[in-house]
C-alpha cells in the first residue's frame, strides 16, 4: 500500500510541471505561456513588495499615511505600488486562466494530478495573500473585508460535532490575533502576506535548482511587453487609496478586489454557515477533480459532466461579479433562482454524460476489434 503511494508520488513528481515549463516549445501559443506569466508576475510582486516594505509602516495609525507617502512623495513610489498591485492581479488572472485551461483540456489527468493540485492550492494561497495584502492599506474596504471574511470563519463552529472543537474561531484567531480587527490583526496579516510568497518562492527556487529544470521560457520581448503593460496600467490607473478605515461606519456599497466579488455576492445569498462551507466545497472539488473524473478522454466533449460544471463555474463567476458591481440583489428571490438553475444544469450535465457513455459503449460493441476512436492523446496505460 505504502509502496503504491510512493510509486504514485514518484511518477507525479517526475512529471511535475509547475509553470508549464515542460511546454516551453509551445510558446507560440499564448495559452501555454500562462505558467511563465504566473512565475514572472510572482517575481515582480516579490521584488516590488520588498521595496514597499522599506517605506510601509505596519501600524493602525501609520499604515494609511505611509502608503499615501509612498504614492505621492517617494520617488517612483506610485510605480512600485502600482506594479505590486497590478502584477498581483496579473498573477491571479494567469493562475485562473491556467486552471481553466487545464480543466477544459483535461490536463489534470494522469500524470499531472499533482501539478494540478499544486496549481489549485496556489490559487487559494494567492487569494489569501491578496486579502491579507489589502488589509495593509488600512482603508475602509480593507477593514470591512477583513472583518466580514473572518466572521464567516467563526460560523464554522456551528457545524455539528466537529464544530465543537471551535476550529472556526481558531482560524479567525490565527489571522486576527485577537477578537477584533486591530493592531494584532494588522501585524499578523503583514506577516502572513509576506510569509506566503517568500517561503513558497524559496521552495520553488530550490525545486528548480535541485531538479535542474528549465524554469523560464518567456522571450525578452514578452517580458518587456508585460513590464510595459504593468507600468502603463500603474500610470493610467494609479492604485487606489480609498478612505481611511473607520470602525464605526460601514460604507455603502462596499466592494473588495475583483477576484473576491463573486464570492461576496454569494455571501449575500446564503445563511452565514454556508458562506463558509460553499467555498470549502469548491476548493475540495477543485483539489479532487483529477480523482473524480475517471473518464478516459481529454477533450471537453469526452467528459460532458465535468465540462458542464466548468462552464457553470465560469458563468457564475462572471454573473455574480457583475451583479455585485451594480449592487443588484433581490435576496428573497435570487437564491431560489440560483439553486434551481444549478440543479437543472447539473442534471443536464449528468444526462449528457450518460448519453455520451451509452453511445460510446454502443460504438465499442459495434466494432469488436480495437475501438474505432483513438481516445485522448495518452498512450495506453502500461500494465502494473
Amino acid at each position, binding site marked *: 500500500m505504502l509502496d503504491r503511494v510512493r510509486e504514485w508520488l514518484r511518477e507525479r513528481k517526475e512529471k511535475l510541471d509547475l509553470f508549464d515549463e515542460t511546454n516551453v516549445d509551445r510558446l507560440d501559443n499564448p495559452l501555454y505561456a500562462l505558467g511563465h506569466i504566473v512565475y514572472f508576475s510572482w517575481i515582480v510582486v516579490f521584488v516590488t513588495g520588498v521595496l514597499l516594505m522599506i517605506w510601509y509602516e505596519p501600524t493602525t495609525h501609520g499604515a494609511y499615511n505611509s502608503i499615501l507617502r509612498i504614492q505621492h512623495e517617494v520617488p517612483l513610489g506610485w510605480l512600485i505600488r502600482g506594479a505590486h498591485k497590478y502584477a498581483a492581479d496579473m498573477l491571479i488572472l494567469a493562475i485562473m486562466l491556467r486552471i481553466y485551461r487545464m480543466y477544459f483540456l483535461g490536463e489534470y489527468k494522469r500524470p499531472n494530478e499533482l501539478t494540478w493540485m499544486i496549481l489549485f492550492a496556489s490559487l487559494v494561497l494567492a487569494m489569501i495573500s491578496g486579502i491579507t495584502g489589502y488589509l495593509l492599506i488600512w482603508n475602509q474596504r480593507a477593514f*470591512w473585508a477583513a*472583518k*466580514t471574511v473572518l*466572521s*464567516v470563519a467563526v460560523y464554522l463552529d456551528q457545524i455539528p460535532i466537529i464544530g465543537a472543537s*471551535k476550529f472556526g*474561531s*481558531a482560524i*479567525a*484567531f*490565527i489571522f486576527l490575533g*485577537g*477578537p*477584533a480587527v486591530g493592531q494584532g490583526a494588522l501585524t499578523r496579516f503583514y506577516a502572513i502576506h509576506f510569509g506566503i510568497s517568500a517561503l513558497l518562492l524559496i521552495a520553488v527556487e530550490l525545486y528548480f535548482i535541485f531538479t535542474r529544470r528549465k524554469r523560464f521560457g518567456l522571450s525578452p520581448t514578452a517580458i518587456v511587453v508585460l513590464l510595459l503593460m504593468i507600468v502603463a496600467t500603474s500610470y493610467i490607473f494609479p492604485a487606489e487609496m480609498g478612505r481611511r478605515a473607520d*470602525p*464605526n*461606519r*460601514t*460604507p*455603502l*456599497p*462596499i466592494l473588495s478586489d475583483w477576484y473576491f466579488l463573486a464570492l461576496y455576492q454569494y*455571501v*449575500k*445569498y*446564503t*445563511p*452565514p454557515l454556508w*458562506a463558509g462551507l460553499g467555498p470549502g466545497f469548491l476548493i475540495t472539488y477543485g483539489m479532487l477533480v483529477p480523482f473524480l473524473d475517471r473518464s478516459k478522454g481529454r477533450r471537453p466533449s469526452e467528459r460532458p459532466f465535468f465540462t458542464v460544471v466548468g462552464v457553470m463555474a465560469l458563468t457564475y463567476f462572471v454573473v455574480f461579479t457583475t451583479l455585485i458591481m451594480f*449592487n*443588484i*440583489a*433581490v*435576496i*428573497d428571490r435570487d437564491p431560489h433562482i440560483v439553486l434551481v438553475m444549478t440543479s437543472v444544469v447539473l442534471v443536464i450535465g449528468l444526462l449528457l454524460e450518460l448519453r455520451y457513455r451509452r453511445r460510446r459503449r454502443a460504438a465499442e460493441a459495434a466494432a469488436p476489434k480495437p475501438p474505432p476512436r483513438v481516445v485522448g492523446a495518452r498512450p495506453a496505460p502500461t500494465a502494473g
Partner: protein
Amino acid sequence: MAERGVNRRTFLRALSAIPVLGALAAFAAPLLRYLKPNLDPGLGLPEGRLRSLAEMDLPQGEQLALGRVEELAEPWSSRIFVYTQRYAQYTPEQARVATIPGVAIRLPWKVSFPGFKQGEEPTDIVIFSRICPHLGCIFNYVPNWREVTAGYGGYVPPEERRHGLMACPCHLSIYDPADRDRPGRVLSGPAPRPPYYFTYEIRDGVIVITSAEPGGIA
C-alpha cells in the same frame, strides 16, 4: 561485524535526530499555541482570579446618559451614539475596551422590548447595537424605506412595514425595529438573528443606557 557497523550507524543517526526533533518541537509549540483561541473567559488564569474575570466577560459598560426623552419625541426620530464596554481577554491588561455603536429609535407604537424592563412593560423607544449580527459590519438606521429598496438590494417592504428600517451595507440584511413581536426582526438578507439590543432605564426623563446584550461584540 559489518552488520554491527550498520546498527551503530542507525543508532547514531537516531541519536542525532533527537536534538533536531527537539528543536522542531520547540519551534512548533508556540506556533501550535496559535490554534487555541483564548476567547473563553478566564482561560489560563490562576484559580483564585478566575471567577472575577469570568464575570468580566459579561458586559461591563459605563452607564451612558443618552439624552432626555423629549429629544426623541417625533415618531421615527433616532439618535446614534457610541457605547464603551469592557470584556475579559487574555492580554497583559486582561481587559479590552470595545466601543459599540448604537442607535435609539422612537416608534409610533409600543412594543415589548427585552432591553426595557426585560420586556415586561411595553415601550416605544428601542435601542439597538449597530453591529450587524451577520458578519459584524455597522448597519444604518434608514428612516425612509424607499432608500432601503433603492440602495440595499431591492427589498420592497409590505404595506404595514413601510417605515423606518435598519439596513446593512455589507450583505444587505434588513431589520424592522418596530416589529410588534420581535423588535429588530430580520426581514431580508443572510443575518441569522435580530441585532443585539441595549438595556436602558428612564431616570427623571433621561434615557440611561445601562448595559448591552451579552455576546454582542464582534
